[in-house]
């Protein structure tokens, strides 16, 4: 399959960071949560702001806006709680987003060799071309899991 091939329809969650919209595969999204108290403690992973408590689970908060739109979010309206498949189970991570999210069905085009590592695929929605995010490339501490084991069922993007 080449990177220009179209894929099957996939469920995605559209999220807003500032004025831009991005997408995440729906099977990587656990829930959308209202902002809650953020707990900070001494640590050296600068991408992580702190942690929130969600259903008894400690979830790290990672503002991906700086990498994607060049600045941190001024206003956090929600946390999109996403999951990353790791060698041992799922890893949860809270992504601050600046608007409501939308679940859509869209045809995905896998990323090409020239695309940034954070782009897993592309989709077109209402005339807008939107990046489908590769969370492992955007958030720290991700351990690569073979695509066969990955929860995100995107095919190999290499030509």
């Amino acid at each position: 399959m080449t990177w220009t091939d179209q894929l099957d329809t996939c469920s995605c969650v559209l999220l807003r960071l500032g004025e831009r919209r991005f997408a995440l595969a729906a099977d990587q999204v656990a829930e959308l949560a209202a902002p809650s108290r953020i707990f900070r403690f001494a640590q050296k992973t600068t991408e992580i702001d702190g942690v929130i408590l969600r259903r008894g689970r400690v979830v790290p908060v990672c503002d991906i806006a700086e990498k994607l739109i060049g600045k941190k979010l001024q206003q956090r309206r929600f946390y999109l709680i996403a999951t990353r498949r790791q060698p041992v189970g799922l890893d949860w991570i809270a992504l601050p987003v600046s608007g409501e999210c939308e679940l859509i069905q869209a045809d995905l085009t896998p990323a090409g060799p020239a695309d940034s590592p954070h782009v897993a695929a592309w989709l077109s929605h209402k005339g807008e071309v939107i990046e489908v995010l590769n969370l492992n490339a955007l958030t720290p501490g991700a351990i690569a899991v073979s695509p066969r084991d990955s929860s995100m069922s995107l095919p190999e993007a290499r030509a």
Partner: protein
Amino acid sequence: MRTATVHKPSPIRTEQIILFRASNQIFAISSASVQEVRSVDSLAGAAVEITEPSLVKVRHAIRRGDRNLYVVNATIHFGLRPTPAALIFLLRKSRVALLVDGIEKMTTMTRLQALPGAFCHEERIWYRGLTVLDQNVIPVVSPSGFLTAEEILLLDAVTGPQSLPDTTEATGPELTL
């Protein structure tokens, strides 16, 4: 004959911890890993100053029996703003004494959550995990995370020629655990 199966609820594993302050942040350490708690004043005369530029978090050593203990300043270790320390934790089966601002309280934790994988730097060595107490998230420090074996060897080499007074019989501890 059928016997009724009795399901006993598995006992909750609890662990006694000390909540301590360093630069106004709260940390937890297992009570079992702290042998003694002393005031800084009680060891002031017995500590020998160390100047090792590569290890600024260690400024003093104290003699306990036949070994030197190295006093790690918790605020510098965790990269926090230094504040006046009041207490020293002498760690059990360790070459480390930990300089802290004070004890918040002693309590019990029932659950230790693994540090999320997104934390991927020194904090993975610093902490055993996180615990939730009264709707607060508290990092639980790892007693072995304060000095590496290489750092202890380096400090042994630096303090080797110096003779340190033994503090084992010095003024009694504030608290023996």
